[in-house]
């Protein structure tokens, strides 16, 4: 009988204890975020979708080579100064966000963006193109400098280029001034 009464008392007390806890939560502000309207503040090194800054990219192909799942497609045409990149695409169906391309990129063209919500209805649309064939990106240092694209240590490179041009110009001047300064030289071969 005492056990019976104690059971009833325990049941009532524990029920009220539980209701007290849930009632407390009723007054608290919910912890959920209204996702599309409110968002988390992303950490600085958030590994979001990888983007390629085509202004900085010179198609060195290191990212495509280091990619473990081969999701980066780079297509170029021409050689040396005429080498142009007409396609840089990342297939996010394959991408595993390992970040190796970002670590490898010498010009910091490959970067993690802060984007992450790219759910789509069609998986073919997850292949993102960063360039258009109509506007190919120059790859050679000199053509890049001429067309105003990013080159590491641009000032030095520009100075070098200017020096080289000057030298060429001087050479040409010398050639015009003395049409045949040393005819023997050409016959060395």
């Amino acid at each position, binding site marked *: 009988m005492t056990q019976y009464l104690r059971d009833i008392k325990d049941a009532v007390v524990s029920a009220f204890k539980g*209701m007290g806890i849930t009632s407390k*939560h009723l007054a608290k502000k*919910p912890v959920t975020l*209204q996702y599309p309207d409110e968002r988390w503040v992303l950490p600085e090194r958030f590994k979001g979708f990888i983007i390629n800054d085509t202004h900085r990219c010179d198609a060195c192909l290191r990212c495509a080579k280091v990619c473990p799942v081969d999701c980066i497609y780079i297509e170029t045409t021409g050689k040396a100064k005429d080498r142009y990149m007409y396609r840089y695409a990342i297939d996010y169906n394959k991408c595993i966000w390992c970040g190796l391309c970002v670590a490898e990129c010498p010009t910091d063209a490959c970067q993690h963006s802060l984007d992450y919500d790219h759910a789509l209805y069609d998986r073919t649309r997850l292949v993102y193109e960063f360039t258009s064939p109509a506007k190919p990106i120059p790859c050679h240092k000199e053509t890049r400098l001429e067309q105003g694209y990013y080159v590491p240590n641009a000032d030095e490179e520009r100075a070098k280029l200017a020096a080289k041009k000057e030298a060429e110009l001087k050479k040409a001047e010398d050639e015009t001034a003395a049409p045949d300064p040393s005819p023997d030289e050409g016959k060395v071969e």
Partner: protein
Amino acid sequence: MESITGLLTKIFGDGMSPMALLISGGLTMALIMSLVMAMCAIVFTWMERKVAGFLQSRYGPMRVGGFHGVLQPVADMLKILGKEDIIPDEADKALFMLSPFVIFIGSLMAWAAIPFAPGFIASNLDLGLFYIFAVSSAAPAGILMAGWASNNKWALYGAARGAAQMVSYEIPLALAAIPVVMATGSLNMNAIVDAQGGGVLNWYIVHDPFLFLAFCLYFIASIAEVNRGPFDMPETESELVAGYHTEYTGMRFAFFFLAEYANLFLVSCIATAVFLGGWHPIAGPVFLPGLVFLIKAVILVFLQMLVRWTLPRLRVDQLMHTCWKVMVPLTLLCVLGSGIWMMVSGELL
């Protein structure tokens, strides 16, 4: 009913014969009560989801209809209307189609004797309270029919459990209301509410300690009677898929759902009328009686939701133990105790 027939005579003049007046008044009232039931389902599904959400530190529906997802029930209803109506091949078709309506009508009939406001009662029966408990016991029949006709083992388990539970808990439910009947000396719902007029101290919940206990027992038994957590044995999602309505889809399922939420409100309305003074406010004269009644009933509904989202489900044996070994003796004690109380305090003499 009086107010409705009065309104009808005002609209159509005195030309109506008493019979026509009775039938049209009854139909009007039935329509109003069906609408009340539908509104219950609409309002309380939204409320249930919001309460459940906030109890768990989340929001619940937020997207449909601007402010806090107020149009979510409408979206749910449209979804349910668009569902395919599936009747299993092996089901007993006639019973399968009939059972949602049996449950629905059992619930609708009980509304006839609920006094929402002075004069606003579908049928002012002398045996009002008795009538309510009598017709609401049609629900186990509907549940058994649904479970049997589905020809599904989960549905049958759920139905058997549900019927056993509802039949058992009807006893403490009715016994808990008996002290009030003793105090009033009537089963008429209007008389019960009228006897509680004039401030909170005249409500039966504070009449004597035994009546307070009776109210608590009524509240617990009513949760079990409407098959909600922690007594949701007939449904037990984790064990029986969905219990007796496992095989139901679309509008047939909606009828079960409608009846569940209507019953939830019904037992709260009975508790309001019987224990909490019906349309009488806490103090002062009767003011907006319908609104006062609704507020009290909705507070009770909220309490039932709080209980549902707090307490874990009981095992079947615990459920039966609670009913037969705890609640029935305690309600009998209430009947005896309040009888002695009334004799000692001189009310009976």
